[in-house]
Structures are given as structure tokens and as C-alpha cells.
């Protein structure tokens, strides 16, 4: 990876990365994929987030669903760990708590495949600085 040499470089890089993300998020990218983020902070891992993440990686592949599974930090819902966020192309992301392997299976079958919500989704209860 080449070094970022100036602020201008950095900004250009940001634009590129941002637009890639935007395309994906707005679902305008024809190749847009399902995104699954697993909260993998200590508390999440302690409650089994690693197993859940592995399950998604394996099962989505097995069930031929084109998806990106990534890890992220603490979402703040410690009471409901492990938590994950699922984003279907062109839709708002949904956070789901108390995810174990069984729940993960339900999420894949119901929400990811058919867009049916499942019990245990956690409404986003905070404002972000993006809309400030």
C-alpha cells in the first residue's frame, strides 16, 4: 500500500471509499450484497459472537447467499449480546440482539431470504453526528 502523501490524497481516497460504500448502501450497485456486521467487542465475544460470526460466514456461503460478513465494535446493547446488524440492499440496517446459532438460522431464512423481520430487533435509540 502506497503512503498517503497529502491531505488531498487522503480526501480523494475518502471519496473513493465513500462512494463504494454508498453504492453498496443505496442498493444502486447491481452487485450489491447483503451485509452482516457482528459486534465483536469483549462482551460480544464473551457471549458467543465469534460462534455467531463463524456460523454466518459458513451458512451464507453454504446457502449461496452473496453477503459480506464483517466484525465491528461494541454497539452498546450489552444486555442483548451477541448483537448483529443486518443490512439488505436498499434498506435501512436492522440490529438484532440475543443472537445465537438458532436465531442466526432464523435470521437467514426469514429476514435475509424473505425480508421478514424477526423478534428481537433492537430499534436504534441514538442520534449520530452524521445527521447533525
Amino acid at each position: 500500500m502506497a503512503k498517503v502523501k497529502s491531505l488531498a490524497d487522503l480526501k480523494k481516497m475518502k471519496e473513493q471509499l465513500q462512494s463504494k460504500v454508498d453504492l453498496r448502501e443505496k442498493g444502486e450497485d447491481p452487485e450489491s450484497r447483503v451485509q452482516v456486521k457482528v459486534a465483536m467487542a469483549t462482551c460480544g465475544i464473551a457471549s458467543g459472537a465469534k460462534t455467531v460470526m463463524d456460523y454466518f460466514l459458513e451458512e451464507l456461503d453454504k446457502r449461496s447467499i452473496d453477503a459480506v460478513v464483517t466484525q465491528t465494535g461494541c454497539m452498546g446493547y450489552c444486555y442483548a449480546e451477541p448483537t448483529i446488524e443486518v443490512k439488505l440492499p436498499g434498506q435501512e440496517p436492522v440490529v438484532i440482539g440475543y443472537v445465537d446459532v438458532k436465531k442466526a438460522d432464523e435470521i437467514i431464512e426469514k429476514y435475509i431470504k424473505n425480508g421478514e423481520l424477526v423478534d428481537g430487533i433492537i430499534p436504534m435509540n441514538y442520534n449520530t453526528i452524521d445527521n447533525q
Partner: protein
Amino acid sequence: MHMLVCGGTGCRASASDAIVETLKSELAAKGMENEVQVIMTGCFGFCEKGPIVKVLPDNTFYTQVTPADSAEIVAEHIVKGRKVNRLLYTDPENKQHISDSKHMGFYKKQLRIALRNCGVINPENIDEYIARDGYQAIGKVFEMGAQAAIEQMKKSGLRGRGGGGFPTGLKWEIASKNHADQKYVVCNADEGDPGAFMDRSILEGDPHSVIEAMTINGFCIGATKGLVYIRAEYPLAIKRLQIAIDQAREYGLLGKDILGSGFDFDMELRYGAGAFVCGEETALIHSMEGERGEPTVKPPFPAESGYLGKPTNVNNVETFANIPVIILKGAEWFSAIGSEKSKGTKVFALAGKINNVGLIEVPMGTTLREVIYEIGGGIKNGKKFKAVQTGGPSGGCLTEKHLDTPIDYDNLLAAGSMMGSGGMIVMDEDDCMVSVAKFYLDFTVEESCGKCSPCRIGNKRLFELLERITKGEGTMEDLDRLRNLSEVIKDSSLCGLGQTSPNPVLSTLDNFYDEYIAHVTERKCPAGQCKSLMQYVVDQEACVGCTACARNCPVNAIAGDRKKPHVIDTSICIKCGACIEKCKFNAISIQ
């Protein structure tokens, strides 16, 4: 279509289960059960107006719904497509109904600044950070210059998030004015409060923001070296921070000539080894130097003579995490958030007897009530709220009467607690406040470095006094001693640890004096937590003589014939509580 029914404990208590049932049956009656799904969700964080029902995809947000309202919602909204206006949220300002919850962001009590990227980006991928404006702030600082950046920091009103609340910009300015051949930037990531994990979450979720902020700090004060003093007990945070440092180096965002500015900055990790006192900056510096982490008298402050005797600026993780945003969005934007003397937001680790244990971030000035009842979803198991402890072992216990106090540095201090690093532990009616004070003193006794006598011996004596009281051996004189000793320890200890360690005692003495009195004069623990003061008694009326208690008693203290009421021999009873748990008839109680 989806109908989301809040399944948070608060809403559940007000019949959200019934709402789900009626909604389902109404839909079934209309033959729409396959088109519209009813989903039970987690807490919306708006318990005050619960139960909540939200209809997707149009984001209609109904408040204070009763089971009786279900039919109307289905009939009107689902079938006819007309919103039920009377159930919509009413803006208290203009009395307008708001139908689309997208337009009612204001109900959300939380604002994520320090946690902006936590749970959003992959912390192990620098690209995701850059895509969210990462490292733009350092570029901006290079353009505006160190002096202007320090001005921004001062104007923003940001105060240290580690506990003391010292103005960050001022701290930087002092460090920038001390001349030396080498200066240091230190990030205090030795989060030691039991029950606090804000810093850890930030480092695990957004390590680059800390790296960027430290670089900004370095540029502003003229330091080329950064050190992160991090708890060795945080392996994941260490790993992610190390990955982030390596990636930043690879991109040239750490190292020589960052972004072509000519400014060099690099950083390394130093590990803590389990000493709470190392959260104090002079102790932290000694620890980084390979010494016992004993604090030294200030002045000299680290800004003058810190790590290896060089000017050093120490800030904690959360403070740093705020900085890139302040630079990018400007001091005015930041200072518009929060209260008069405390700007911005504060992250709290909300835990204890509360439904929504979690990591939250609220604007300064939010009340404890909002945090506990809205965001936290109220007290677990429908128990009664008793106290909330903020500031960890250095803080105090606040009560009912403080619930509407806006949270900021000065208010908490005035109320006898402190901001601390952000632990917030909620306690209910079952918690004995004398025991809680004892718990914190036990911690302080173990964590005192032993250097100064008030802290080394005084806290031990406080603990012993509290122990006597919880055993029912205390006297009224002990209560006076407790107060005098607490005040002297606070007044005369060397460092912040001793100067704050009596706070849990003083605040409980102030707010729960009755409970102390009960322990001393009646030899009773009103909360029923102090073992020595408890007696287990079998209610002779309720006992059916099932023998479950007697069979499970580990010391055979329970006697009684089958199908006849049993009796506990209190001289043998070890008060383990096994009998209470086994009794299916609620016949055993603590007196």
C-alpha cells in the same frame, strides 16, 4: 408490512405482550396475518411514552398504546391506510402530531460522538475509518496550525473525560508552552473502575480515532512521540490498537512527514499491570518508567515534568476520541451540545439492576432519570429504584432526589459524587447501602498504593468500621468517626485516589443515614443484605411441610416432620439462602 411492538421491560410491564396478541388476532380476523408481521423488539429507549408500536415501512410511531387500541390501529392504519392521530407522538412544543419517526430523532436521548464509529466500522480496517472522514482532522490541523488548533480545543469547552474534568485545551496550551528537546503525548487507557468499560469499547471499536487524536495532540504541543498506557487485561483492545497503529504506519499516517506536513509522530504501547492508582497521571508516568505506580506531589505537573522528566500531556481514551470530530465540525458545533460548563457528550457504562445494561452516550445535561428510565429501560424485575452510583470508587451514591439533576461535572460534584470515568451502576431496594460503601472501600483498600498514611491506614479503618456496622457491632460513635475519618482522608491524601475514596461513604451517610442508623441501633439491615443481621424464618402458616428446604440445607439447620411446618435453628443456620430458593411456597423469609 411489519408492526414492531416494543418488548423492552418497561413496555412489557404495561402490557405489550397483550398488544402483540390482540394485534395478531385482529390481523387474523382481517385475514392479513400473512401480509403483516407482528414483531416484538428490544427497547426503543422511549419508555416514558410506552408501550410503543411502530409500523413499517412508513415509520409510523404510536405511543402509549393499549391492547384496546390494537383493533383501531389494524382497522384504520393497516386496512384503510389512515393513521390513528390520537396515538401519534405529540410534540410538546408545538402540539403537532408527528407521524414519521424519522422526523422525531429528538426523542432519542443519546448522541454518539465519541462512539460515532463503534459498532459501525470494522475496527481492523483503516479504509472504513478513512471512508468516514478518518484522518481528515489531522490534515485540517496541519493547515490551520498548532496555535489555531489549540484555540479550537479551548473554545470547544472539552473537559477531560477521565474523571477530573480539567479543560483539555488549557492542558494542551500549558504543555505547548513548556520548551524541551522532547515531549510526549500519553493516552491513559488504564481504565480501572470496576464496572466501567467505555475506553475499552472505544479502543476495540474505533482505535484509529485515538491514534489520530494523539497525532493532533502531538502536533499541537510539539511532541513526536505518543505512548498508550493500556491495561494488560484488555487483550482485544491491545490487538486492535496494534493493528491500527501498523495500518496507520503503512499508510504514512504515523511516522515521518505525515501528509507531507513535515511533522513526525509515532507511538507505542505500554502495559499496565493491574493497579487502579495508575489512572492517576503521575502514577501512570512512574509505571511507564518501570517503577512502582506511586503518585507524586503535584506540582510539578506532567505538562512541566512528566515521562522521563519531559513535558507530557496525558488525556484519556474518551477525551481523545472526541477530538477529531471537534476539529472537523468546529468548536462551535461541539460547544452547542451539552450544558453550560460541561460541553459535548459523555459515555457511560450503564450497569447494575437495570434492564438495558449497555454503553450509552448522552449529551451533558441529560438527567439521571432519562438515562435510567428512558435509555436504561428502568429497574430490573420491576423493583424499586434506590440509588445510582457514578464515578466508581471515587464517586458517590445518588438517590431519588437527584434523578432530575442534569448530569455534568459540576452538578455531580455538588451532589456529592463525581463524573469519574463513566461507570454508572444502578441499585434497587435489595441493595444495602452500607454494604455498597463497604464494597467500594474494600476496593480502595486493595488498590491504595500505600504511600500516604491517610489512604493507606485510613481507608483500612473506614473499611473496618463499615464491617462492624454491617455485622451489627457498630455504635453511634462509629458513625461520627466514619464521617470525621472520611473528611480527613479526603482533605489530606496525596492523590486523587485517597482524595475521593471516602465519597461512597460520605454520600451514603448523607443520603442513607437512616439505613446506617438501622444497622447500628436496631441491628437490622433494611435491605436484607447483611448476613449477620439476617434471620431466616419459616412462616408456619405458609409451610406445607414439603421438606425441600430441609433436604437442601447444607448444614441441616432445618427440622420438621413431613407435611408439618418446619423450623430453622438460627444457631446453626449459615444464611446461605438455599432454602429460600428451594421453597416453592414462599414460606421462608428473611427478618
